[in-house]
């Protein structure tokens, strides 16, 4: 039939059902949502396996096309059955099948909520379409679209007229491109891959060359700026040093900006942030005496007042930005920020 298949679905099953007597859960922050794209063989599964096994206390919910391929160590698996595998480190891995919506609904029903949701796009799908779920669902916040490319193969794949558009399409909205398997590529292949990327990636895209898809899971927004598990302390929100600060491939800029800020100008600035920034978070005093929380991830900005009842940050205004090493536009950020003063 048409594009959409007809499919009955297995009955809904809670991954982590709340006990009967549990009172209604308190409102929670939006869960960061990351999409991993890339053609067959680019290293998506390797990346996800790496994140699942190095989750470092974060409870990740990972949605994949086929968890057989993940090949997780048996001792890591606490419980397996049906469409889901629960890991002993608190993470969960679920099969998307052909019903991402259904799989997400089940995940979002889980309590306590997961620290991050990571979705593997199929080799031919456009990850930006999946990222739309994070823009749609009030429980989710788009944290990034990471697209992997096989350094040894991408130039040859892109030369196939059947695949050229399929390979290029996902680049348009990627906030981080991983040119992976550089160790397996010949110098000529690597040069061809870089040239293809230069021709097809959007201007200013962040490209990181990797081996074994070794992207630090710390880049996931869940704990990038604050300690795991903490509610706001009595002295109010405080941004932690970014967890990738010690990774030489990344560069962070932390500052305590002065002055008060105009929300409309900040919003406009965030929407046109200079190229190179991967992640940005800020707590800034507003013109009306309240506080604003700014967030930029997945090439996507949000700005909102601190939730009611949050103590004001005693540490004052804070801003942390992260980029690939050598790509952080500090001067442009500082100038742009100044222009948002009231």
């Amino acid at each position: 039939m048409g594009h959409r298949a007809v499919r009955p679905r297995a009955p809904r099953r809670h991954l982590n059902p709340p006990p009967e007597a549990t009172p209604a859960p308190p409102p929670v922050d939006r869960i960061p949502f990351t999409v991993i794209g890339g053609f067959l063989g680019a290293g998506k599964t390797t990346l996800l396996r790496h994140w699942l096994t190095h989750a470092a206390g974060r409870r990740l919910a990972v949605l994949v096309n086929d968890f057989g391929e993940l090949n997780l160590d048996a001792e890591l698996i606490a419980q397996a059955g049906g469409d889901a595998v629960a890991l002993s480190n608190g993470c969960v891995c679920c099969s998307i099948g052909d019903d991402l919506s259904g799989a997400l609904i089940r995940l979002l029903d889980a309590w306590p909520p997961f620290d991050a949701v990571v979705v593997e796009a199929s080799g031919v799908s456009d990850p930006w379409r999946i990222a739309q779920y994070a823009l749609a669902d009030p429980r989710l916040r788009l944290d990034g679209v990471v697209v992997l490319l096989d350094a040894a193969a991408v130039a040859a794949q892109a030369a196939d007229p059947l695949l050229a558009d399929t390979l290029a399409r996902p680049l348009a909205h990627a906030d981080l491109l991983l040119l992976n398997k550089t160790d397996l590529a010949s110098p000529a292949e690597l040069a061809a891959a870089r040239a293809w990327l230069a021709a097809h990636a959007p201007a200013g895209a962040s490209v990181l060359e990797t081996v074994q898809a070794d992207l630090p899971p710390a880049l996931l927004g869940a704990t990038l700026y604050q300690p795991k598990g903490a509610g706001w302390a009595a002295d109010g929100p405080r941004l932690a040093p970014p967890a990738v600060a010690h990774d030489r491939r990344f560069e962070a800029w932390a500052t305590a900006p002065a002055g008060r800020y105009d929300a409309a100008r900040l919003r406009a600035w965030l929407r046109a942030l200079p190229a190179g920034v991967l992640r940005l978070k800020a707590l800034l005093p507003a013109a009306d005496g309240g506080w604003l929380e700014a967030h930029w991830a997945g090439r996507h900005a949000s700005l909102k007042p601190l939730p009611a009842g949050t103590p004001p940050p005693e540490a004052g205004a804070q801003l942390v930005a992260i980029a690939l090493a050598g790509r952080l536009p500090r001067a442009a950020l500082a100038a742009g920020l100044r222009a948002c003063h009231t």
Partner: protein
Amino acid sequence: MTQTTVYVAKRIVTMNPAQPEATHVAVRDGRILAVGDLARCAAWGTCTLDETFADQVLLPGFVEGHCHLKEGGMWVWPYLGWFDRRDPDGKVWPGVRSMDAAVARLAEIEAAMPPGQPLVAWGFDPIYFGGERMTTRHLDRVGDGSRPIVIGHANGHVMNVNSATLRLAGITADCEVEGVARYADGTPNGELAEPAAMHLVLRQVGNAGLLAPMDEAGMRGFGRIACRSGVTTATDLVNRLTEPDLAVLRQATGADDYPVRLLPAFQAFHGTHGAAAGAEHVRALQAGNTDRLRFGLVKMMLDGSIQGFSARLRWPGYFNGAPNGAKNGIWVTAPAQYEADFETYHRAGLTIHTHTNGDEASEAAVDAIARVLARAPRPGHRHTLQHGQMIDRPLFGRMAALGLAANLFTNHLWYWGDQHHDVTMGPDRAHRLDACRSALDEGVRLAIHSDAPVTPLGPLFTAWCAVNRVTPSGRLLGAAERLTVAEALRAITLGAAWTLGLDHEIGSIECGKRADFAVLGADPREVAPMALKDVPVWGTVLSGRVHRAAT
């Protein structure tokens, strides 16, 4: 003591070229014992002469090689399509030809519903409304505006909702999702496209329409529609075949009075299983095959739909361009992945039916299958390309050389023929849309299909499309591609049976085959070709059991 029943009919059209016509058919143990005159049938000894069909014409039971059981399961929701459509109980739902008509129908249904329950309707297709779009301004006129209303579009990718549903789903002007259509002032107008936008609604109202699971009532509904259409064998051409799916299939077909033989095709795309595990699953299920439930088909999918601009087209691509500016459609499965998985299922001895709408997808399938067959020859594989709407003669020639069958979507000629001519592919390729004549000339085994519920189940209508190739605007699309009535009848019987590997068992009326008949009120070869779709269907016989169509 075995019973022998001899049916006498006004005429029996056997589709057996060695004996095209007869007046009597003897049935024993659900199979055809003899065909010819009374003497030939009576020669087998004691028999009962049954005159039920004395005024009817018998044809082999029709075989629908590409439909979905959902044809019977959609009717728990009201129908809102452009064309008239008959439900399982025989009631004709008139086509909805204006927004006002849609509002009026919904208002009537809404008034009779208990409070609180959302109103879900299906089959709406704005492609016929000449650019006019349904919005909240229409749907908010239904009832007092408090009940959530969800209108599923025929393509399954878009829905319209009313303001109450927008509120329930939390869709406001601030919602950034790309699929949320808007009024000029930026507020959502109720049209939601693509899964992410629809997800917000499905979270609130639950799965509806195509997404709802098949149930027992839907299975019975499908049986009634099949019986009324003369269909005795049908596929369910994509099924996950999980335990709940299997339970529904087994329960329905396990009843002796279930009127149709079903062949569910295992869903081998979207990576729900590794191919090896999938092949093993289907092989294990085959061991439990019954007369009315047969496993062994595998469904794979390469591209999307032409009218949705998601099919993969060769040069020169889409005629008036896709609305989203895309230069080509999408791969649902990467060609390399398709080839690898195809080989696994092929080596397991299974028959693979591949969805390819655009000609680039069809060509990619042929290329991949040619390589697989070179590595692993398997005579009599019966692999089939499904839809194949843009295949031309050279590609049919390659298919014939590989033993690949074509099951063409001829109902498109009527339902979207004008749109293909004017919008999607332009006149040149629209005139060779679903090129049945080319397929036969090139020596390809041919079936034709409805893809119900995308279009209604009804092989005589499907044959009518292949014979007449007319569109609602009165256009004749590709006169040279028309089939004769005899060829079209073959395509809906023996032709489709061949693609399912069942031509030794069904598809014609001859000794040894299943006693499957379509019982018709006239000989379809004798009516005017334009009246082919209107030949009355009395009912069917499945493996010797008579099923009268509900009236």
